[in-house]
């Protein structure tokens, strides 16, 4: 084990860095998608609510590994046969797209639920004073909703971080992918997966601590 760590430790740390990089990109675009679709699912507009529903249902109904293969292999091949263009995605780009689509769908549901949990009277009171729908949303409803959403959002961050491991299948050099390579050389499967598991655990527990501290601070404000 010690020898394994001393020989491959730096490779694994780099791989963890790649995992975090992919997770951050996925979360960044995922949050943007989540906010857009989350708001689109609460506004009084049938079209936007319908589109959101389709998006969420498709993502929650398709395994991410299938989405990964589809985006990485399927889409470039499809574009080539239809348009004749050569369009290639790097595994980081494809991975970011998959994670963002996935994370965005679940985030939009968290945001929708968070907004809908706020008493409609809050919106009505703001509107009755002459504030527009969006001003009421940003000044009154969202500040209250976000506080309630934070535990679920952190949970989604952690799920997205773990989901990066799926993207080993399209060859992105994240932790699982690199571990598999090391095992292929050393055959030390038990030790390697133990090390990998502990690495994930440490990062996620640290994230959890940050989240708890944040939550405590927000609840103290009231």
């Amino acid at each position, binding site marked *: 084990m010690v020898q394994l760590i001393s020989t491959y430790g730096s490779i694994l740390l780099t791989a963890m860095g790649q995992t975090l990089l992919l997770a951050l990109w996925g979360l960044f675009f995922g949050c943007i998608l989540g906010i857009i679709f989350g708001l689109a699912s609460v506004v009084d507009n049938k079209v936007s609510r319908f589109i959101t529903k389709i998006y969420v249902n498709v993502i929650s109904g398709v395994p991410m590994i299938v989405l990964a293969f589809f985006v990485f292999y399927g889409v470039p091949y499809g574009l080539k046969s239809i348009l004749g263009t050569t369009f290639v995605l790097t595994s980081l780009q494809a991975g970011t797209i998959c994670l963002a689509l996935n994370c965005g769908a679940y985030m939009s549901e968290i945001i929708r639920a968070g907004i809908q949990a706020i*008493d409609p*009277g*809050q919106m*009505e*009171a*703001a*509107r*009755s*004073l*002459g*504030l*527009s729908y969006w*001003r009421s949303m940003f*000044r*009154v409803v969202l*500040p*209250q909703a976000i*506080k309630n959403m934070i535990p679920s959002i952190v949970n989604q961050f952690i799920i997205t971080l773990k989901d990066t491991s799926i993207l080993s299948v399209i060859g992105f050099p994240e932790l699982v992918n690199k571990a598999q390579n090391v095992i292929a050389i050393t055959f030390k499967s038990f030790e390697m997966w133990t090390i990998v598991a502990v690495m994930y655990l440490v990062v996620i527990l640290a994230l959890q601590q940050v989240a708890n501290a944040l939550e405590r601070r927000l609840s103290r404000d*009231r």
Partner: protein
Amino acid sequence: MTDNQKNIKIHIENLVKSFGHNKVLRGISTDICEGEVVCVIGPSGSGKSTFLRCINRLETATSGEIVVDGYRISDKKVNLNKVRENIGMVFQHFNLFANMNVLNNLMLAPVDLKKASKADAKETAMRLLETVGLSDKADSFPSQLSGGQKQRVAIARALAMSPDIMLFDEPTSALDPEMVGEVLAVMKQLARDGMTMVVVTHEMGFAREVADRVLFMDEGVILEEGTPEQIFSSPKHPRTKDFLDKVL
């Protein structure tokens, strides 16, 4: 008639409101003049609150005409937010903004809608809090107030936009009995100061004392209207009589 010389603030003609197949308002017509205090009474489910909420279009009327201050509220093209700045509303469940302290509850709309600078808004807010007897609560959050205090803050918040008209939707129904008085006292003062008020209420004592006119609603229509004296002492309609017998 003196009524004809007064300015008509709210003109409502043949107002109909349905929720799906449920016809809640079945043709309501009335005019409310400047400075008039109108109390709307009636059994629950008679459409009183819906009627009130149609006046500032928190509910959109199915048909009919509502004109407030010359603005046709029922018109889709009207600048609703602009009209609402002039119509304060007080809700049964207060609906104070839970994420802000009392002072910011009062300052939000005037500052956000650029009706006042921050300093001016603060000054107005503190003055209003004083008139409702809560200047010591400016820094409190809504969750720290009693029901009666919340409702008085809610009234002050509506007044912070200096509206011409105030709508009250059962303002004392969610209050403990001992707190009803403090809220009614604020409303009485407001009435004395000449505010145009439409009050949906179960407080018959308030209606009798303060109202210029009482509307009795039942099953989506105004069954009877008149001065408090007429309605409470000699109701003409048997349904009105029956209702008053039960509540008085």
